[in-house]
């Protein structure tokens, strides 16, 4: 057998040096992240890379200037009929360039696409839909971009008024501890669910609707909760999002599998099947009112009983 070429200590040192060199390359590569501010006053051909951005553009009166959307953009109906540029995080750059846009609207989530769009010399504007405030701000931004201030400002005012009324109704009330399920496995009976963690737009929605998140802060943003963890958390109410589901009442019935939950015993399980729930746009902002009415049913101003 062959002898080692280098004595072990020297070899180890070389390995350590190579590893250190690899590690050093990472921070050395740091450059500050510069987010360009929207500079275009009159975009004429806009491509939207997210369903929520499409919805905001149409609400702000920019609809006529939108020339391309993703295959997930189904609302409003005019948007669904527009040319598609591929998926939400996976656009086809050829299809995008072929539409000759002068502005591409994207979200902070588009970190992979953004440098490519810059390479292609396209102007981009970022909407931040990770909070209700961000959604409202993006409507105003869209109004600036298309010079449709009146329409955009009216929409923002309408939504702010709605949020203010919900806040006035609920602020004096006890805030229930709520688990929001954004998706739940049903393949093996009552499976684990993915909950909205204490961050992001659903947490914001819940707070504005007069609830508080029962899920404690942690490293996982959409923590999976097993039936056991649910029983330990024992929230006052459960909100399940089942966008597009046909039978919300049947889904609510499945929660009888966990009779020891306070929320189940007191019939405080609310299932919502609206298909816009995964899209953090203006319709989700309006949904604050629906959610608040579910969580605070004794509200004398409530216009309708619990949904489902």
């Amino acid at each position, binding site marked *: 057998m062959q002898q080692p070429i280098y004595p072990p200590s020297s070899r180890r040192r070389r390995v350590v040096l190579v590893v250190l060199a690899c590690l050093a390359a990472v921070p050395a*590569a740091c450059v500050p992240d510069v987010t360009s501010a929207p500079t275009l006053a009159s975009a004429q051909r806009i491509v939207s890379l997210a369903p929520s951005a499409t919805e905001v553009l149409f609400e702000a009166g920019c609809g006529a200037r939108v020339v391309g959307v993703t*295959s997930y953009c189904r609302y409003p109906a005019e948007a669904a009929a527009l040319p598609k540029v591929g998926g939400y995080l996976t656009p086809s750059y050829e299809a995008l360039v*072929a539409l000759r846009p002068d502005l591409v609207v994207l979200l902070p989530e588009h970190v992979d696409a953004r440098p490519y769009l810059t390479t*292609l010399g396209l102007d981009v504007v970022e909407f931040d839909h990770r909070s209700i405030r961000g959604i409202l701000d993006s409507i105003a931004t869209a109004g600036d971009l298309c010079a449709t201030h009146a329409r955009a400002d009216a929409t923002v005012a309408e939504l702010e008024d709605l949020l203010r009324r919900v806040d006035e109704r609920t602020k004096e009330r006890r805030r229930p501890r709520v688990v929001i399920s954004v998706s739940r496995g049903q393949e093996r009976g009552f499976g684990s669910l993915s909950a909205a963690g204490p961050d992001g737009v659903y947490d914001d929605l819940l707070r504005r609707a007069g609830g508080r998140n029962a899920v404690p802060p942690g490293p*996982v943003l959409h923590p999976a909760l097993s039936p056991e963890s649910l029983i330990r958390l024992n929230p006052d109410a459960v909100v399940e999002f089942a966008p597009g589901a046909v039978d919300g009442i049947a889904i609510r019935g499945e929660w009888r599998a966990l009779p020891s939950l306070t929320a189940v015993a007191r019939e405080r399980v609310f299932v919502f099947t609206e298909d816009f729930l995964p899209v953090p746009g203006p319709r989700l902002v309006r949904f604050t009112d629906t959610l608040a009415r579910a969580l605070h049913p004794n509200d004398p101003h409530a216009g309708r009983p619990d949904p489902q």
Partner: protein
Amino acid sequence: MWLAGVSAVVLAAIAAALLIDLPMEGRQEILWRIRVPRVSLGLAAGAALAASGMAFQAMFRNALATPYTLGVSSGASLGAALYMRAALRLDAAGIDGVSLAALAGAGLSTMLVYGLTRLSRAFSTATLLLAGVATSFSITSLILLTQYSSDVTTAFRVGRWLMGGLDVVGFEPVWQVLPFAAAGLLVVTVLTREMDLLVAGEDLAATRGVSVEPVKRLLFFAVSLMVGGVTAVCGPIGFVGLIVPHIGRLLVGGRHRLLAPFSILGGASFLVTCDTVARVAIAPVEVPVGSITALVGGPFFLTLLLWGRANRGFETS
């Protein structure tokens, strides 16, 4: 003749961009900033992956060896996944941060596998293989943990990255892959005789004057670097490295003097063909190329295996 085949594939893939119904300016932009870089990257990546698979299959005398057997791609994927999970945004010298992180991951996992192998006194092929496979599995579980603890968008990005893709814009990714691919391909084409002898057995190779351990070490590092460089940009694209060399063994035999050029050219044209399918199958939505390679190549290989000249397989090379 082989070169003509590759050229036909490339020209078809590129020329199709000229048929898009657009003003000239738009067509040129698509051609030069998207289509040509993408096809170039496919050529480089396909050649590198197929040559890597061929070299590892020879070195390990194992028909199931792939460029990813030793965990290089797992290391790269973990680097990329951690980078996305940490929501970092950095880049240096025009190289994307995800690629840098993946490259660092590939380098570290290669060093780890090498270090583990050196713990046993000799540079034993069996130890290398086992160390590589074990490292690969451990790293894969770390990737799953990283993905699981991410938000939906990041989990999707990581998942999408793990499927592999060539959808780049501009030539920077191509320049980034080229040095790794060129260096690796050079080593592989120079060592054809040594690989022939390694397939016949290390003892036999030694008696024929091959310095077995230095050759194996050189192959290990050259191929790992090549795979790391490609994976850092394209993500792990499966199947090319496993099957193209076997198609070559069926068509041109197991001698590496012919098999190496076949793998390089065959891998290049195969990946570009698969990427074309991925791009147009349900356009404008693009399918990850990694999910197409096996779909297109599997039936082709099985046809060759069952009805072709099966007597020229791996075991007789």
